[in-house]
């Protein structure tokens, strides 16, 4: 326009800018998560709690099934360890929305900044997701070393593990985005929402119960849930194949229904769910953000 310095300096492409937003948000997330003023709290929350859940699982198993640990135990144990990742990714972003809005009171400044809230929320999620993944790995290690879990580095199907993991993350993050959108418009007790939904999924995502033993309606729901397929694939990859009851009990797969799918079937299903999930969460979030803006919720202090 004139010789004046140009005030607006958006030289970077939007992709570059979103990448930058993601990186900075991840850095911020890490600062927030690693800010354990008392390391013991971190220890209890991230390590002791999951390990005691695993111990309870082990004890219940021994009470019911005796001291013999068959592949059903592996099924339960691996699912339980992986569910930490599911939990973190689902509850995570809604927590960020509430924390930024009500505790730090910064959501309105983030929102009016030229950043994509997607890139920001996903960036913020990275730290907690890493904690979830590390804890899962830790649980699996503890299980293999001391709890009789049949898991060895040699039998893990690494190729499938990486494939399933990569296909699952977009699905999990889409879930997280949808719930973060809900947190934006919910006025009270939003902080529990993520965990409540994650606990509900516990029942229908073949974590402890294979779809085969659920009542019809829940079974249908279970088979419509991407997490069901993700857990099945991850379990197979970690255990080195389909998990079965012991030969004495007929040696049939723990979930005959899911056994119908080959590894590549599962991967295809997850790939479809990823595409659908990302698309739905994108449009859902756009819509609900509009609702939040119309209701004046972006900077509302609901006193959660």
């Amino acid at each position, binding site marked *: *326009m*004139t010789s*004046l*310095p140009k*005030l*607006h*300096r*958006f*030289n*970077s492409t939007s992709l570059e*800018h979103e990448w*930058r*937003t993601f990186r*900075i948000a991840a850095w*911020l997330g890490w*600062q*927030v998560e690693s*800010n354990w003023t008392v390391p013991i709290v971190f220890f209890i929350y991230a390590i002791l709690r999951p390990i005691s859940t695993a111990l309870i699982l082990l004890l219940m198993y021994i009470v019911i099934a005796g001291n013999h640990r068959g592949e059903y135990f592996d099924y339960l144990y691996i699912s339980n360890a992986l569910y930490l990742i599911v939990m973190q990714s689902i509850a995570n972003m809604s927590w960020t929305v509430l924390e930024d809005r009500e505790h*730090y*009171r*910064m959501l*309105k*400044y*983030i*929102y*009016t*900044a*030229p*950043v994509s809230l997607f890139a920001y929320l996903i960036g913020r999620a990275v730290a907690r997701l890493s904690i979830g993944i590390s804890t899962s790995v830790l649980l699996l290690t503890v299980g293999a070393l001391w709890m009789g879990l049949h898991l060895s580095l040699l039998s893990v199907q690494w190729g499938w593990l990486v494939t399933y993991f990569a296909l699952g993350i977009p699905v999990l993050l889409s879930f997280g985005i949808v719930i973060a959108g809900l947190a934006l418009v919910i006025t009270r007790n939003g902080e529990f929402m993520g965990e409540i939904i994650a606990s509900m999924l516990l029942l229908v995502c073949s974590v402890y119960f294979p779809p085969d033993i659920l009542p019809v309606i829940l079974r249908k729901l279970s088979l419509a849930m991407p997490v069901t397929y993700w857990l099945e694939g991850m379990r197979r990859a970690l255990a080195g194949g389909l998990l079965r009851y012991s030969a004495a009990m007929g040696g049939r797969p723990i979930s005959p229904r899911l056994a119908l799918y080959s590894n590549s079937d599962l991967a295809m299903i997850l790939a479809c769910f990823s595409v659908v999930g990302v698309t739905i969460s994108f449009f859902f979030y756009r819509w609900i953000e*509009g609702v939040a*803006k*119309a209701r*004046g919720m*972006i*900077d509302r202090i609901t006193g959660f």
Partner: protein
Amino acid sequence: MSQSPLAIKTDNVGRIYKKKAAKRVSRASSPDSSRQLVALDGVTLEVEKGELFGLLGPNGAGKTTLIKVLTTLLTPSFGSAEVLGYDVVREPKAIRERINMVSGGETSGYGILTVKENLWMFSQFYGVPTKEAHRRSDELLARLELTGMKDTRVSGLSTGERQRMNFCRGFITDPEVLFLDEPTLGLDVHIARVTREFTREWMRKNPERTVLLTTHYMAEADELCDRIAIIDKGRVLACDTPENLKRMLQAQPVFQIRAGGLSESGIDGIRSTTGVIGLTQEFDLETSHHSLNLILQEESVISDVVGAIGAAGGKLVGLEKHEPTLEDVFVKLVGRSLKEDVTE
């Protein structure tokens, strides 16, 4: 674009909040209209680039609501608004790249980050090159006398210090339009003056920059703003330069009266004297005198006022005529003093 667009342009913009009826109030007794709150009631404003524009109004007038609409935080219920030629509803992204906002009187900030990190992070969100960001951050922190605290975590700052940091956050991205919502609220007199001086200087350095400011302090508006809109109950009552606003009262003399022995009902009596347009009062505890500020229809009304004081059992201590201030204009338009709000 052949002609450079206005910095801010609103056309009959409005915002209605739906109030959730309190549980105790039965539905029958609260018809639909009473559960709606018109926070902005058709505001039409034009702010040129390079202007330092002030919004002046009592609590609940709708100032913050207007800023939320303009900063794309809140959807207007009716009417339209543009910032730098971009529509707030249809083109929020283009607006966000060019604006910034600071709200006073709140304790925002990531407590785990240091002052410097908070500023740096925001500069990155706006795509400011890191080196430039550090230069600006140092300069701003020095001006706001926060240099010694730049490595302090925000959780360790006082409310006022947080607000100073927040003020820096608004400027570090070098916005084309900056929205300042009561930026000096709660700051001490010295720092408040520093922020005013800095804002003025910043504007002078580049005539393309625009500031929209809300404040409760008359003197601040008078000293700082090129133009002022006085708003109340979501409507603009007047919009002009401070000088022109004061000129509105030229035909209407303003008197300051000091009197002893007046009761509240006595003052109400004076207020209702024919020819009294506006009356505000202050009570001096030491002398137990009332100090009344009166805007009159015409000079001759003063004798009736003096009579009313006598009739109310009051004793006249002093009387003088003075030049109208922005405060007087406000009282005339809004019907009450802004000071009464502030001290509430």
